């Protein structure tokens, strides 16, 4: 244990936002399954209402998060791209494919100022800026069928809206599986990632002698 540093890596709000987002998404996925008729727990009416409530909840949480990230500057985590971004991305992929089995260290060091590796940046930006807005917009269109009939007509009806919303939900579900797993690749122990997102503290091993290969984004 000696030499292990504890670094505050996630702020209180970031953690709160993350778990609220995660919780909402899980509830939305579950109620969404019931709305689609796959399971039956709350009844159709109950599932639809809970889905709608959690949807607005998620929208609120997402906007607040956006506000926070913009004003606190945390948005830099997502958008800052070093010049050798592509190289690093490839290195990250190779790490997952090969290096991790060999016990190699992470190619990209994680610091509080730069928490995300390139792959994460790609995925999270995609999730937060493409998939989430798409889900929100299609979800709002389905919720507002009766009060904005023009919207439904313009996009081609429920025949288009529901499949798109469904595809988004499948992608979200896939993301959840992959994301939860990949958190086990960060940190000293498999659950370190989850623990860090709960407590905010990450345990960082002492740096080995510089080889010249590390990068600090």
């Amino acid at each position, binding site marked *: 244990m000696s030499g292990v540093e504890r670094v505050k890596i996630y702020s209180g709000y970031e953690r709160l936002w993350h778990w609220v987002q995660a919780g909402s998404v899980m509830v939305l996925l579950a109620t969404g399954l019931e709305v*689609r008729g796959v399971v039956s727990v709350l009844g*159709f009416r109950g599932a639809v209402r809970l889905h709608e409530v959690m949807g607005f909840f998620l929208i609120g949480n997402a906007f607040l998060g956006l506000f926070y990230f913009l004003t606190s500057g945390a948005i830099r985590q997502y958008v800052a791209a070093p010049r050798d971004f592509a190289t690093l991305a490839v290195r990250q992929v190779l790490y997952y494919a090969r290096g991790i089995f*060999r*016990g190699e260290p992470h190619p990209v060091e994680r610091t509080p100022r730069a928490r995300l590796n390139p792959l994460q940046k790609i995925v999270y930006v995609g999730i937060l800026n493409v998939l989430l807005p798409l889900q929100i917009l299609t979800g709002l269109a389905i919720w507002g*069928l*009766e009060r904005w009939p023009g919207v439904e007509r313009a996009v081609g009806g429920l025949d288009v809206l529901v499949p798109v919303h*469904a595809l988004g939900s*499948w992608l979200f579900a896939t993301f959840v*599986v*992959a994301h939860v797993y990949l958190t086990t690749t960060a940190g000293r122990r498999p659950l370190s990632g989850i623990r860090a997102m709960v407590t905010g503290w990450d345990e960082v091993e002492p740096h080995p002698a510089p080889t010249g290969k590390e990068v600090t984004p």
Partner: protein
Amino acid sequence: MRLPAGPVVALALGALVGLAHAGSPMHPDVPLLDTEGNRVLETGKPVSPVRTCGQCHDAEFIEGHDFHATLGFDERKAPGTVPGGRPWDTSAGPFGRWDPATNRRLALGDETSFDLGVADWIRTVGLRHVGGGPARLGESGKPLGSESGSLPETHALDAATGRPVRWDWAASGTVELNCFLCHVAGARDDARRATLAAGRFEWAATATLAGTGLVAPAADGTYAYVREAFTRWGATDRTRMPLGRPTAAACGACHLDVVEGPVPVGAVEAARPRDPRSGGQVFSAQRVSDSAWNLRDKERRTHVFDVHAERLVGCTDCHHSLNDPARFVEADVSRPRHLAYDARRASVGEFVRRPSHDLAKGTSSRPHAASALDGTMRRCDACHDVLEDHGRWLPSARRHAQALSCEACHVPEVPAAAVAQTDWTVLDAAGRPMVAWRGVSGPVDDPASLVTGYQPVLLPRKESDGRTRLVPHTLETTWTWWGGSPERPVRPFDLRAALLAGPGVHHRDVLAALDVDRDGSLDPSELRLDAPAKVAAVRARLEAVGIERPRIVGTIEPTGLHHGIVSREATRSCEACHADGSLLARPFEVARYVPSGATTELVADARVWLAGRLVAGADGSLVYEPSPKEAGRYVLGHDDAGWIDRLGLLLLVGTALGVAGHAAARALAARRARRSS
């Protein structure tokens, strides 16, 4: 519910045809006149309602504005030019349109193979006709029986030879528009029908008064007048012949199953509906649990048959005379948008003098009959504020109202039997077609048969506001033989000649082909052409009696269900539609069995269509599987997203597997590393 003492049948008939009511207190005593305008008490001739009632009411106007009288006769066209009709149809109404279920063909101007003359029509199909129109006048406009007339007008079918034979109109007389049938409370429709069936057409109106005590049947089928029953001045009085607005029971003489009064539904006629085209709809204020039917789960069904009947809404409250000042509403096409209600009305006197008998009609599923009257009836939303009530508990209430008719939820089931299939391809020993019923297991005339009722099928229908809504229907399939050149339906006479060797006995070829258990007679399970050999045998017989190239044609006819409305028992749960077993996709048996090699399709003149597939059922039946998507509706909770769901599932499962594999590999690698270090 106790049955009254005394003969049930007589009481039941009286109750069925008209609950005794006082009639209008304003109607004066009426002298009954014959066709020449003389009092019948003096001449002894049949009563002429047109002359009698025409003393005050404009009978010519009435008969000219009465689809019940004309039945399409005044809109007749050349055969083959009727929209949605057959090559031999001359009108879209019951007079001139071939009805597959009765399989009798009356074709004016198309005298290929004579089946029904007008006189025959009156005695069969026309038993449900109020008289006047084609039962009185010929195509030329002159009364039937005058010199010029087409073959069907002058001749009738000889039941022995199958050839036309002259009909003596002078002896039978014609059928006048029968005001008494609808407007006299307690009118005796059974006596009227018996008189018509016997060929005594001119006495039909007189027979209708059989229950009033004013007339007594004479030995020769005519009627004699009971002088003592008339007033001092030879007129009727209100207590004997109560005259007034038609009651629901009056309409129920022909339409639906209307039961008023204390006698339970089904006490007289077992499970067979009085109106075979009704789809089993019952218009009655009785509770289903109080009916006399052997109905499954009857005790649970404590709701009334029809909530409007319970609340004293009568037929004429919705199906009102189009110029009734109390109910008149100007058509939407001409009414200015700023006028919700135009208070200017005709006076009651004008109405009583010249009441139009064109009645308000909804958006029928078979629109071409009386098409000018289509959509003249107020719909549910004219009286009920749908959004006010449903908006409190139903999400997207307006959207539901745009996609579904009110009946879709408010007629969730029909607790009665209805005709499912009529098979004219074979006849039983008595020469009748095989009729299969839905909603009852066992013979429909046996009071002990279990009535299960049935759940209607929802068909998309284009409504007058341009929207397509799902409306509950029942579907009846009829299988008939067509043949000859030009191709026409094979007459029942020819069918009997082909299939029966004599009364009550089948032809030996038919027996040979159909008698599976070799007991010498054909029971109902054998009377079906479910194998090519059987079809061939019957076809051979038909060809032997001279029918060229006979083939089997199937017809599916939809009957919209708009009565039998329930209120609290309406479909309310979301999962009824928004779940896997959605009733919007519930399969509906269309045909009990399909004769070998035959196909069937929906009639061409329907405003509804089958949005789905017709598939063969396991037991040889034909089943309609509706598809809401084909009807243009995506149903949340029921419909799937097609390939997207499959792709998504693949992605998810693939990722999960990949993740599992990766984790396993890591674990292995870690263990190996530990061992080596």
